């Protein structure tokens, strides 16, 4: 009680959580790891007073502090396991850092580049991105696999979670609207939630996927993303002319986004960054420049793009490897780009359109096969003209859940869902028709045919395979505990109705192909059963996404058993599936 009273009193006088928490015990000295040989992989940036650049390193769990005046990393503090985002309060007195693996939000006090750790808060499971309220008292945090938006009170650590119907990633508070925009980590959904009430307001579906950047200017919200056409084919022509996949930024009018009766897509403007010869794969972080243009990092082609110009054109500049995040100085003259695979920061002179220097964040080891494979997976230059990487469709190793008309099933005119690569090493054979008996031949096909990237080298294929083998099976949406009774009954339904014949544990697939009464447009009936692990995370089902209901997907299998299933059995079965 006493503590609560104390906090309440402070609230009346002090603005930011850092200032509030300053008197609390528990402030620790953090080890400086700037000289340590390790992968850092910077993924997020925050710039204080145009002087101190804070860099969240995902692989090392450290924060690098760069003095942009001297161009030196002044220190690197080890703060967690896997830092995925960080943000300064508007008074720059507080820094909030997100640790993905530890599922923590970590609050620091900041002064002249010095960080003091104040407190660690519980965040939603698998946190990905955060934003801070204007007063710096609340953090909104996306929980990807937990499918939640967390609203964290930075004063008392209270965490309110809003369940979402999709796995979210990028998040932005919309100023003056008491609203939060939350974007899908894989597909194109965009939810708007209320900050104060902590409730969902409206759900949008953008034509696109792989949303990796949000930026605000006035009433405009800029969303970087890709669009995959199910009507186009993975031929040289359609890849070359950008008919298959485009790399874009959409300019949404925020009042229309908020108004449930308006259609924000109709009133939006789509800017296509890529063009023939310059595919500009995998646009990620985006920043608004004072001159009205945007600066977008192209994470697949190791470039940044400036635009749109007067006639919609974009100018590109090469930076370090896999740039993912960008911040711009307040006068708009300097941009700092986080090169995730370059373990470096590119300093860009915006007016001259030139890289002033690339600053290395610290010593790195030699990449092994898995690391080389990871770099290839996110590299759009593996494709013709840099239009797409593996990640463009298998977003972060999972799936965009979109339909793609590739030739991996032996035909065109038969678009099928992009499969998740989580746990892919264990789910052979590969391809919807099961024609790839080893993972390497599927990798070769995807690069040379789907991506029109020419023949990959044997080493590239081996490295990609090594990386793919590191991808874990997807998480279940229910724990065994949550699903206990129904799950046990559902397991019995699963066994009794012969589901295990094709979907056998532990991978919940088998190495054969089966005719279950479904056929594609070319008459292919022998289909490869996808693994059911993580099926509860998916929102579309069967090879052509013909249903959004898992129950209907089960019923559409024309086996004798599924037709006879009672409603009760179905309910139990669905619970069981969500536990896989």
């Amino acid at each position, binding site marked *: 009680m006493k503590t609560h009273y104390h906090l309440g009193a402070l609230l009346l006088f002090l603005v930011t959580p850092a200032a509030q928490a300053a008197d609390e015990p528990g402030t620790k000295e953090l080890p400086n790891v700037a000289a340590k040989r390790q992968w850092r992989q910077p993924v997020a940036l925050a710039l204080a007073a145009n002087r101190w650049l804070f860099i969240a390193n995902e692989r090392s769990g450290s924060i690098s502090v760069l003095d942009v005046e001297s161009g030196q990393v002044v220190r690197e503090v080890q703060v967690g396991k896997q830092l995925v985002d960080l943000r300064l309060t508007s008074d720059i007195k507080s820094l909030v850092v997100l640790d993905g693996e530890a599922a923590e939000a970590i609050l620091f006090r900041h002064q002249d580049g010095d960080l003091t750790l104040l407190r660690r808060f519980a965040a939603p499971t698998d946190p990905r991105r955060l934003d801070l309220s204007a007063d710096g008292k609340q953090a909104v945090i996306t929980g990807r696999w937990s499918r939640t938006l967390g609203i964290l009170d930075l004063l008392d650590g209270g965490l309110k979670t809003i369940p979402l119907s999709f796995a979210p990633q990028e998040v932005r508070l919309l100023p003056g609207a008491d609203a939060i925009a939350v974007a899908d980590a894989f597909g194109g959904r965009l939810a708007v939630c209320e900050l104060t009430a902590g409730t969902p307001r409206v759900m949008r*579906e953008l*034509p696109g996927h792989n949303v990796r950047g949000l930026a605000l200017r006035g009433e405009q919200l800029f969303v970087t993303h890709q*669009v995959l*056409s*199910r*009507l*186009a*084919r993975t031929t*040289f*022509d*359609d890849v*070359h*002319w*950008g*008919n298959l996949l485009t790399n874009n930024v959409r300019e949404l009018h925020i009042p229309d986004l908020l108004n449930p009766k308006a259609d924000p*897509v*109709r009133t939006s403007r*789509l*800017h*296509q960054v890529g*063009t*023939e010869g310059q595919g500009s794969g995998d646009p990620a972080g985006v920043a608004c420049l004072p001159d009205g243009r945007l600066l977008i990092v192209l994470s697949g082609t190791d470039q940044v793009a400036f635009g*749109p110009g*007067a*006639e*919609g054109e974009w100018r590109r500049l090469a930076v370090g490897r896999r740039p993912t995040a960008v911040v711009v100085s307040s006068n708009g003259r300097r941009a700092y780009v986080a090169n995730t695979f370059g373990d470096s920061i590119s300093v860009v002179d915006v007016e001259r359109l030139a890289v002033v220097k690339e600053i290395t964040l610290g010593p790195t080891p030699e990449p092994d096969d898995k690391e080389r494979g990871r770099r290839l997976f996110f590299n759009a230059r593996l494709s013709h003209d840099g239009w797409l990487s593996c990640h463009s469709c298998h977003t972060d190793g999972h799936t965009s859940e979109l339909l793609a008309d590739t030739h991996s099933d032996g035909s065109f005119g038969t678009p099928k869902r992009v499969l998740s690569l989580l746990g892919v090493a264990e789910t052979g054979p590969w391809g919807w028709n099961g024609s790839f008996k080893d993972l390497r031949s599927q990798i070769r096909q995807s690069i040379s045919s789907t991506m029109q990237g020419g023949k990959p080298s044997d080493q590239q294929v081996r490295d990609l395979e090594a990386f793919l083998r590191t991808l874990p099976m997807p998480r279940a949406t229910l724990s065994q505990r949550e699903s206990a009774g129904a799950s046990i009954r559902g397991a019995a339904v699963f066994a009794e109705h012969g589901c295990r014949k094709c979907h056998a544990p532990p991978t919940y697939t088998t190495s054969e192909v089966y005719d279950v009464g479904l056929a594609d*447009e070319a008459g292919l009936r022998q289909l490869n059963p996808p693994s059911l692990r993580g099926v509860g995370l998916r929102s579309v089902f069967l090879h052509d996404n013909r249903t959004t209901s898992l129950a209907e997907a089960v019923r559409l299998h024309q086996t004798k058993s599924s037709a006879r299933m009672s409603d009760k059995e179905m309910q139990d079965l669905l619970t069981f599936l969500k536990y896989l």
Partner: protein
Amino acid sequence: MPRLFSYLLMLAIGSGLILPRLATAADEKDERSKPAAPLLWAIVKTIEERHIAPPSRQQMLLDIGRAAGIPSDVLESESFKMKLDQIKNAEDLLALMVAARPANKQINPEEALRKLLQSWPGRLDLVSEKDFKVVEQLNANRYVGTGIQVRTNAEEKLVQVMLAFPNGPARKAGLKTDDLILEVEGISVRGAGMIRKVVDLLRGEEGSTVTLVVRQPGSEEKRTISIVRSVIPLQTVFGYERLSEESWNYKPLADQPIAYVHLSGIRSSTLRELRQLEPRLQAQGCKALVLDLRFESGARLHDVTLLADGLLDEGPLWKIRDRSNTTREVRSDRDSLFGEWPMVVLINPTISNTGMEWLAAALKARGRAVLVGEPVESNSFVTEHVHLPDGLGVLALPTSRVVLPEQFQPRMTNAGPKSKWTVKPDELVKVEQKQRQEIVARILAHESFRSAQDPALKPVEDPQLAKALDVLKAALKQGGAKDK
């Protein structure tokens, strides 16, 4: 209709159908028939297996017999028809035709085959594998070459440059319109009938060089020009009038925010070209669009589908009916180019059976565009290129049908549903043949841009375009009133 695309095909392929085996056949009766039989048999088999509405085998074999010069009385005899039914392979076909044909009959095999193919439903065509590669390059807008059109100048007995494309490598290297070609790669190409040889010599891999010796008509001065072959960017999206080699005016009326765009064809690049044009038109303040499809050269269903998807928001486009009589709906996805702009699409009979009529019909059915001009017919055939076995060539034949929304369908007849239908304009504006020729001549002059002094560049009366502009002016006025 003389279109840029067909010129290119002629340039690329030479004079029509290439049948090397037939063309090189010896004079003897048996020898002449020999190479044609496997080809004809392959064509018959392919038609049987893939054609959406194939003639019966007996009918096809009778047609072949007729083309081979077998007299009607023989063809119509029951005994001959029975023999036809026993044909199981190319050898049988050859044996029967050789036996039945009068010894003195002279035929031109190329001509005969062309007529034969055209007589079957869907106007079939055959090209060699080599020429098909060029067709594919053109369709993909990845044509590799020097970027010129040539013709034979009969008076001079020389091959003459009709046009060096704006932005093409030949034009950049200094080749001029009307240049007469004397040598290619050091080989003299003087004399009549050299056009195919010139075309062959001009062809080559991307990045390679070809050297020409040329002179202007009436001049003795020879010029040597080296051209690096490259991908020729063939524009398919054009504006109202060309201002220079690089730039266009898109507004027919200076004081109206109405853009005019002519599609000379739909290829893999067309959607990309429109996507790049949209922000430029927006920057010029345009708020409405005339999409001129008239005088277009034909398109593949796939490219038309992508363009229709680009121009239309989410919804149905058409259905495809295949040989097994199953229909499949094709739908466009969310989002569209030119958002809410009022749009008029210009159509006329020159685009009948080109594939463009499907686009026009979908835009009308979905209420996206007002159609202005004259009715367009469609046989609804979707043509596909099928490779014949043993490298015998590539056969273009209809393998499915496009089924449009009911409003375009003809009524049922006693004989069942008719396959031909008509896309009628919302605003019927007829023009005389002479006027139509003037309109296309002007469009071509701007698109090919032979020279800035070309008299065909001057404006002509185009009542269909005038109507389109009136419709859009009214729509903009109405829209403006609504906004207020």
